[in-house]
C-alpha cells in the first residue's frame, strides 16, 4: 500500500495472507465465512495446486504471527472460468480452507455486498495489505483510505486496458494512496452507515505502475458482480461433492 500507515492490531480481522511454500506471503485474501475466503485469480497463475498454499489469519506482523494468528491449509481453489490473463478480467477466486477457523476478535468474516449494491463514486473506503510501499515491503499490515472513482473517469486513465463491469476503481492521482504488488487479492472495504459493519466491494487486482509517477488509480475486482457466482461455488463445493 502506497501512502498508507501501519494498521492497529485487529483492525481488519478478515484480512488474510496467502502463502506458498518457501516464498512466504504471495498475495492478500479475505475471509467471507468460517471456511471460505476470496482472492484474485492471477495469484494462482501457474500454481493452481491447492497443496502449495496456506492461509494465515489474525496477522498483523508477517514476521511475528503472534497468539491471535490461525493457519489453515487450502482444500480447494476455484478460479473463475472466465479469468482472462491478458486483460485481467474476471480476476477472482474462491478458496476453501481445509477446516473452519475459530471466530475471535482478530479473525472475523467480512460482509459480502447485497445483489446490485455498489459503493457510490467519491465515497471513501479502505484498502489493506502487506504489499510494496513504494520503497520497501512492510512486515506490518498497512491500511490506506481511497476514494471510489467512477468507471468513465477510471477508463480515461487507462489507454491500454478496458475497464469492464467486473472492475471497480479507487485511489487518487498516482503517488498518493494506492495498492501495489503484494496487495493483490486483498480487500477494498467500505463502512456501513451504522458505523459498525464493513462490507467488501473490491479485491486488489491491477493498476498503473504503482511506484512510478504515472497517473492512475488502482483497479479492483468488483465483488458485487461476482456475489451470485461466489454463493454458487460455495454451495457446489459444500453439497455437491462427487
Amino acid at each position, binding site marked *: 500500500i502506497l501512502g498508507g500507515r501501519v494498521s492497529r492490531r485487529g483492525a481488519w*480481522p*478478515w484480512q488474510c495472507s496467502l502463502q506458498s511454500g518457501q516464498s512466504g506471503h504471495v498475495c492478500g485474501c479475505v475471509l467471507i465465512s468460517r471456511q471460505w475466503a476470496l482472492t484474485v485469480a492471477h495469484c494462482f497463475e501457474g500454481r493452481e495446486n491447492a497443496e502449495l498454499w496456506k492461509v494465515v489469519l489474525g496477522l498483523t506482523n508477517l514476521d511475528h504471527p503472534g497468539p491471535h494468528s490461525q493457519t489453515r491449509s487450502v482444500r480447494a481453489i476455484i478460479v473463475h472460468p472466465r479469468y482472462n490473463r491478458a486483460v485481467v478480467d474476471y480476476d477472482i477466486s474462491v478458496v476453501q480452507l481445509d477446516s473452519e477457523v475459530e471466530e475471535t476478535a*482478530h479473525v472475523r468474516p*467480512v460482509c459480502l455486498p447485497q445483489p446490485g449494491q455498489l459503493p457510490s463514486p467519491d465515497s471513501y473506503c479502505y484498502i489493506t495489505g502487506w504489499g510494496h510501499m513504494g520503497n520497501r515491503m512492510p512486515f506490518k499490515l498497512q491500511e490506506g483510505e481511497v476514494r471510489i472513482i467512477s468507471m468513465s473517469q477510471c477508463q480515461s486513465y487507462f489507454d491500454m486496458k478496458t475497464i469492464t463491469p467486473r472492475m471497480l476503481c479507487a485511489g487518487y492521482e498516482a503517488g498518493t494512496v494506492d495498492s501495489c504488488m503484494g496487495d493483490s487479492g486483498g480487500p477494498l472495504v467500505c463502512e456501513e452507515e451504522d458505523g459498525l459493519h464493513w462490507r467488501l466491494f473490491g479485491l486488489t487486482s491491477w493498476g498503473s505502475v504503482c511506484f512510478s509517477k504515472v497517473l492512475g488509480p488502482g483497479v479492483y475486482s468488483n465483488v458485487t458482480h461476482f456475489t451470485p457466482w461466489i454463493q454458487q461455488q460455495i454451495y457446489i463445493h459444500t453439497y*455437491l461433492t462427487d
Partner: protein
Amino acid sequence: CMSPPCQPACGGASAACDPRNTNCSRCEPITLELCMNLPYNLTSFPNYLGHLSQRESSVSWESSLFPALVQTGCYQYLMFYACTLLVPKCDPVSLQKVPPCRSLCRSAKEKCESVLGIVGLQWPEDSDCGQFPEDRGNATCLLPEDGVDECSPSHFKCRSGRCVLGSKRCDGHLDCDDHSDEDNCGCSERALWECPGSKVCIKPTMICDGFPDCPLQVDEANCSVCRDNELACNNHQCVHRTLWCDGKKHCSDSSDEWDCVSLSDQSGSVLTVFKTAAEYQVCADEWNPDLSRLTCNQLGLGVPSSVSMVPDQPGVPGRRRWLHVHPEWSLRNGSALQARLEKRSHACHSRRRVSVLCAREECGLRPALGLHPHRTKR
C-alpha cells in the same frame, strides 16, 4: 546457468545444469502477441530487459509502455526496436541472441525519451545503447528492413498509417488523426457476432458458452435441443427431468442442482423445492431443526431465525404437490436439502407447509477495536 535450464541430454528429466556447460541457450518460438509480426520468429531468454520468460515479458510494464508510446508516432520503428528488446532474435544456428544495432537504439531513445518525460516516466534503464554493437562493425545486429510494420498486432493501423491500440477500435472515440478507427464498426466487419436487437458485438466463441453476454441473454438462447423428457443444463447439455434436483450432479457443470431450494411467496419464507422439474412445497409432518439449519446454510442466508408450519391455502388452483422428509434424511450427510426429501404421495397429513426465516450471521465487525472506535470520550 545464467540462461534457461539446460535441455535434457537424452530427453529425460531436465538435467541439472553442468557448471562447465554454461551454454544453455536455446531458441523458442515467439508467442508474445505484441511481437508476432517481426521479420524473425525465434527468440531466447533472458531478454535485454531482464525478463526470464515470454510470460514475464507479457505482463511487464514495458509491454504496456511501448505500445502506448507508439501511438505518439515519435519514431517509425519504435515497435520494432521494442520487440528486439522484449523478444530478442535468436539465431537458429549459433543459438545466440542477435541484438539491435546501436543506431536503432539511439534513434528510438533520442526521438521518444522526451515524450516519456511528459508523463514523468524514464526510458527503460536496462536498454542502455552502449551495450549494442555498431551497425558497421563485424558483429551482426538488427536494423529494420523495408516493409517492417510499425504497428504491432495489438494495434489498429489508421488509414493514415498511425497506430492506435486495438482497444480503441470502434470504442466511440475518434483516436486516429483521420478518424478511421471509427469506420466500418459493424460487428461482421470485425469478424464479431451482432447480438439480435442490439448493437452489441461479441466474439463467436461466446455464443452458447454458458455465460450470457448479449442483452436479454440471447446469445444463450436456443443453444440446445432436448427431448420432451429432458431439460437443458447451463452449458446446454440435456439431462432427464427425473434427475433434476435429486442431490447428485448429472450436468457436467452441476447446473441440474442449482436453485433447487427457495423461500418464496409474499412473506419470503415458505419453503419451495424444485424437484424432477416440478415445484413442490414441503409437508411439515416430520420437519426438524437440523433441516431448517441446512436450508438457510444451503441458500447462503446464514442461520434460521424463525421456523413455522403454515396451513395450506385452501382452494389454490391445481393440486399442490408435496414433498416429505426422507426416512433416512439423517444418513445423507453432506447432501443438499433436495436429496433429503422424497415424493411420497399427494397428501400431507397436517396439511401444513414449512416456513423458514433466515438471518445472516454477524459479519464485518471489528471487536478488537471496541464498539465505537471513533467515539471514545475524552
